[in-house]
């Protein structure tokens, strides 16, 4: 099995920097992905409800969706870059094994992305037909998430790679993996829950201009959030128990940091539910962001745990060249400052 693992290339800075950047940027992608999934599903649901207020909610979400999609994709780029640097030999291989599905993501996303624009720009003209458009986008989003779950688990299972000898056409999925379904559900149920919270937030922003709509958005969003968070906690435990025993045991005391993270996650989840029950949208959102970071760190432990027999990050050879990273940080700061300026101008103009 390990003789099929490709030899990795060298890295220019110590792996810790790259891991830091990976863990910093991935939750941002997840937050946006959640907002995208949740608001698309709620926009679809709202289109099924009768009443002018529901239509307005759907239309409001329609306006936000193309932007959220753009930033979800954009913020997916950075973590995908850093994971390729740290785990390239695994993720390139698993991607090739499922090449047809993996490449299809591009086409699917283009379709879904245009659906969100169509749903926005032609909202009134489409009328009830808009259901089909945004419905297609939702189905595609859920499908893409499934393909991602497949790849992210297949890359951790070099033992399964010998499936290639029966199928080199790139149509392998990791369906035999017991963690696949809980992992997938963990992402989409949790994602929709957080998406509900995002809808509540979008409503809050509108509170002054359209209090009636804001009220509906907060009510619906927080209900979705609360109910699905309960479901999510159950799925989380299913996922935990489905993990290979040595990996699971890391969270049960064998690795102190991993265990602390699990406990912190549970406490944050309780905090989230408490804030939600009080309809404290901003407080719940702050908890959720912290929780998503904690879960991302746990995910890094799962990944390292599955691969520890064959690979640890310190095996990467460093040929030091720090100056490009320094330039990157400078550009990042300048870029963020520019974004702040742009947003300020836009807010003033509005």
């Amino acid at each position: 099995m390990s003789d099929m693992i490709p030899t990795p290339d060298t890295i220019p800075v110590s792996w810790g920097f790259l891991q830091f950047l990976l863990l910093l940027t991935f939750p941002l992608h997840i937050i946006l992905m959640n907002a995208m999934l949740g608001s698309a599903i709620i926009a679809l649901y709202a289109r099924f409800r009768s009443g002018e207020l529901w239509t307005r909610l759907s239309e409001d979400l329609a306006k936000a969706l193309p932007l959220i999609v753009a930033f979800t994709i954009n913020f997916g780029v950075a973590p995908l870059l850093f994971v390729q640097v740290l785990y390239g030999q695994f993720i390139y291989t698993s991607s090739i094994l499922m090449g047809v599905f993996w490449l299809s993501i591009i086409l699917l996303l283009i379709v879904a992305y245009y659906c969100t624009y169509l749903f926005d720009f032609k909202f009134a003209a489409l009328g009830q037909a808009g259901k089909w458009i945004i419905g297609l986008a939702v189905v595609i989003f859920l499908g893409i998430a499934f393909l991602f779950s497949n790849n992210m688990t297949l890359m951790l299972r070099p033992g399964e790679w010998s499936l290639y000898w029966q199928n080199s056409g790139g149509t392998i999925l990791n369906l035999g993996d017991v963690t696949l379904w809980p992992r997938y559900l963990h992402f989409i149920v949790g994602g929709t829950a957080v998406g509900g919270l995002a809808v509540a937030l979008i409503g809050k922003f509108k509170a002054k201009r359209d209090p009636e709509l804001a009220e509906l958005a907060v009510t619906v969003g927080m209900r979705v959030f609360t109910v699905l968070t309960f479901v999510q906690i159950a799925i989380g435990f299913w996922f935990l128990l489905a993990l290979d025993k040595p990996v699971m045991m890391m969270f049960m005391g064998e690795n102190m940091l991993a265990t602390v993270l699990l406990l912190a996650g549970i406490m944050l989840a309780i905090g989230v539910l408490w804030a939600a029950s009080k309809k404290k949208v901003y407080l719940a959102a702050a908890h959720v962001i912290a929780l998503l970071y904690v879960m991302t760190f746990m995910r890094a432990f799962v990944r390292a745990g599955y691969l520890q027999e064959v690979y640890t990050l310190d095996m990467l050879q460093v040929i030091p060249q720090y100056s490009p990273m320094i330039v990157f940080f400078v550009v990042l700061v300048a870029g963020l400052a520019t974004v702040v300026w742009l947003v300020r101008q836009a807010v003033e103009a509005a």
Partner: protein
Amino acid sequence: MNYPVWYLPTIGGAFFIALIAITHVFVSHFAVGGGLYLIFAERLGLRRNSQAILDFTKKHAKFFILITLVFGSMTGVGIWFIIALASAGGTSLLIHNFVFGWAIEWVFFVVEIVAAFVYFYTFGKMKPSTHQAVGWVYFGAAWASLFIINGILSFMLTPGAWLESGNFWIGFFNPTFWPSLFFRTFIATMLAGVYAFLTCSFLRDGELKKTMTRFSGWWVLVSFLASIPFGYWYLNVLPEPARDLVAGKSPTIQTALDYGLYAIGLVFVLSLVLTLIRPALNVKPVAFLIMMGAFVFLGAFEWSREAARRPFVINQVMYSNGLMPVDVEKANAVGFLQSAKWTSIREVTPENLQQAGAEIFQHQCYACHTVNGWNNDIVPLTESMSYRAMVSYIQTIHEKRYFMPPFAGTDAEAQALAAYLVGGLHGKEIVMAAPVAESAVARGALVFEESCSACHGYDAIAPSMAGWNADRIREALDNLSQLNEMMEDFSGTTAEKEALTQYLLTGGEVATDGAVLFEENCSMCHGLAEIRPGMVGWDRAKIRQSLDNLSAINQMMEDYDGTPSEKDALADYLAAAVAGGDQ
């Protein structure tokens, strides 16, 4: 060899790369130039105080957002996906070496998106000077993205002194960086005009259409003319092999450049007409035609740039098939199948010959060749070759045709690959023997090889045969044991003895069978039937002479470097073929 091969024999990964990459560059250059166009179009509207021009600009901005933000960014991510699938080793090398280059590009991508949204959604609602500033921020970020990508793309063609130092900045600011950057910048502003023609063609207001078509036309014309010196500079800094390939040594580049030239000619002439003569002619089909022309031109340029670094995917560093020169050396020493990670067969045996060959094909050839597909299909390309010719061709493939990577592996592996290509794909016999020799001399050479060559070659016995005639040779063959007691008298048939005599008489010039020479030297590129029409009316003298000047007939050919008698034999064979004889 380090990574598995995603094997879709009839389509090929290269097809997807070309498809996604060419559509992407057509949009991404527009994303750069189009941003600048929006600023100036808006400024024109503001200066002339024309709401119509401002409305046009806003409409164009919407089209711009829908094309660049969705299709542009998704195909950009798409290139990254497909190159990692089709060429994982090369992608990994670029990602690891330039990780912070890509990361910087991502920051510009973030700024670009935010600025594009702000520009579009606040159009007409923001103070004009601020709105223009937002436009400039957009253009700055988009051009900076081009700046970064250009560094990495041009690195792949000309890594320059990076090869020694491995230094990020030296690789980034490589020999083609600047000419390529300026060339692409002007291509980007040219495309801004081309895309704007399309938006203009939808305008109903005749006066506005005239104004904006002219305005857009100047973008195309000026940009195109400005790009020419940078294109010339670009060509001049190319290293020797790449320049030769672009100048005619590569058949695919030649075709691409021909199309590209016609296409840009069309764009230029039509733009000239629309700008200087009749802007009203800018109707949808014309605008679309210009767009197609620009698409073909850009596609031809990108294709040629990619093909010019052949046989490498990263020049001098990694071959198109993902092998590095050091991998080739290792494979030659211990065997490719032994040293590769993703082959199921580890050693060639008589039983697995074709299967091993198929695996080697997937790893070493499939990066560029499909099987029964339409993109550089290996089947017609190998149609006229025998197993023997194929084995010899594979072993010298890089020397014979520079743009093909060298074969990596042992002799047995080369034979396995040849067996797959000749036996597996064409169902021909896998035998090492030459085709049945036509002439007595050639038959004699075979007899010599079988009966004599185990102990001595021709050269070893030539001095002692000096001045012998046919009869003397026949007599000696009957009494070999008397010449040297280690030999036995020749015991072959009379015909064999006669053939051997003729062979010894001619002085050991053996392989003078023109058909064999043709197969060994010509058939990998063309069969007889393909060249015969072009040689109608040629006599033997002309054919003989042309063998010394093949490069003058077609730059992709090398002058034939056989011995004088081989040239004669090949000329005889071709002359007979032209006269209507041998197929």
